[in-house]
């Protein structure tokens, strides 16, 4: 594998061809926030927190660092203004959905988010045509680590996504879960909110048929 040299935050970084920007950055201790990333899993690109700015010629663009592979001479900025502006909003949006969680709290402190101003309460829309948008605050950030780990590493598919848009949720499939989960529980520690054990318990309780 040949070596490439890229510039991250004005620092020269050597990386192997085929590495992603995120991997290259981490290899030299540069911290890029992530939520849905895990070394054992295929990059998912859902949280968007790892987006960074790359500069090309006169223009620049935002790319997903967990997916974008390094190039020789690539100029990367991981804490530029548009990047931080976006991260702040993303964190606010995440906490608006899941107000009780402490995940990524240290990033909130780093970026000076003292209040979630994006929305007052995550609640009910009363509108006939959109009657389905009645959502309650949850403990799930939909990072997908549990679903993907169970599918890609354990290959049991005991837990999965259902629904679309804001109705998307993570669901244990009781008939499969009760067979495998008690002996595994690997996803419990992966979950950034720690809500999985109770989630499993609830799913088990419902499975009476």
């Amino acid at each position, binding site marked *: 594998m040949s070596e490439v040299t890229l510039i991250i935050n004005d620092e020269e970084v050597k990386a192997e061809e085929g590495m992603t920007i995120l991997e290259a950055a981490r290899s030299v201790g540069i911290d890029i926030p992530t939520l849905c990333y895990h070394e054992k899993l295929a990059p998912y690109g859902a949280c968007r927190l790892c987006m960074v700015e790359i500069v090309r010629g006169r223009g620049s663009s935002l790319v997903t660092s967990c997916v974008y592979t390094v190039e020789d001479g690539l100029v990367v900025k991981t804490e530029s203004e548009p990047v931080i502006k976006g991260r702040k909003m993303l964190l606010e949006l995440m906490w608006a959905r899941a107000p009780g969680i402490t995940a990524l709290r240290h990033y909130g402190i780093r970026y000076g988010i003292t209040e979630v101003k994006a929305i007052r309460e995550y609640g009910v829309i009363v509108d006939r045509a959109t009657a389905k948008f009645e959502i309650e605050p949850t403990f799930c950030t939909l990072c997908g680590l549990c679903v993907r780990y169970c*599918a890609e590493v354990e290959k049991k598919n005991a837990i999965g996504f259902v629904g679309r848009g804001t109705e998307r949720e993570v669901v244990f*499939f009781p008939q499969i879960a009760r067979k495998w989960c008690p002996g595994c529980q690997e996803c419990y520690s992966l979950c950034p909110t720690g809500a999985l054990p109770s989630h499993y318990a609830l799913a088990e309780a419902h499975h009476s048929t």
Partner: protein
Amino acid sequence: MARGLAKINEIDGKYGSNKSALIQILLEIQRENNWLPKDTLMWVSQKLGVPLTETYHVVTFYKAFSLMPKGRHSITVCLGTACHVRGAPRLLDRVIETLKIKPGESSTDMRFSLDTVNCLGCCALGPVMVVDSVYYGKPSTKQIEQIFATCE
């Protein structure tokens, strides 16, 4: 159930055991049966070697699928942009008031199911309501009542 299974086998035979045929197979079953029972979903997943979680994600992701039995008569109101601008929300309100159910629901006597759709492509008629594949453009409140009254 035996007849249903035979039908499913027929549909499945048409597509083979190719995982990528999941959506096409489910669409045909949905068309035949009007909804997708849990047993059917488990059976199709097994046949195609698709994880049950993925099948469920597919049927809850795409709007064509129904996991609950639907009413005998399907009522659809178009909420496309052109219809919206011509007053579709008011039409929907009147339909909801008459049927006493919301979009996505079926009446308790299983007579009606109400859905909305985002553009059927007959904007010149808008706002459009479809009852069992018959299209009605700009129906008045009275017409709506009359049409529903003829649905057994």
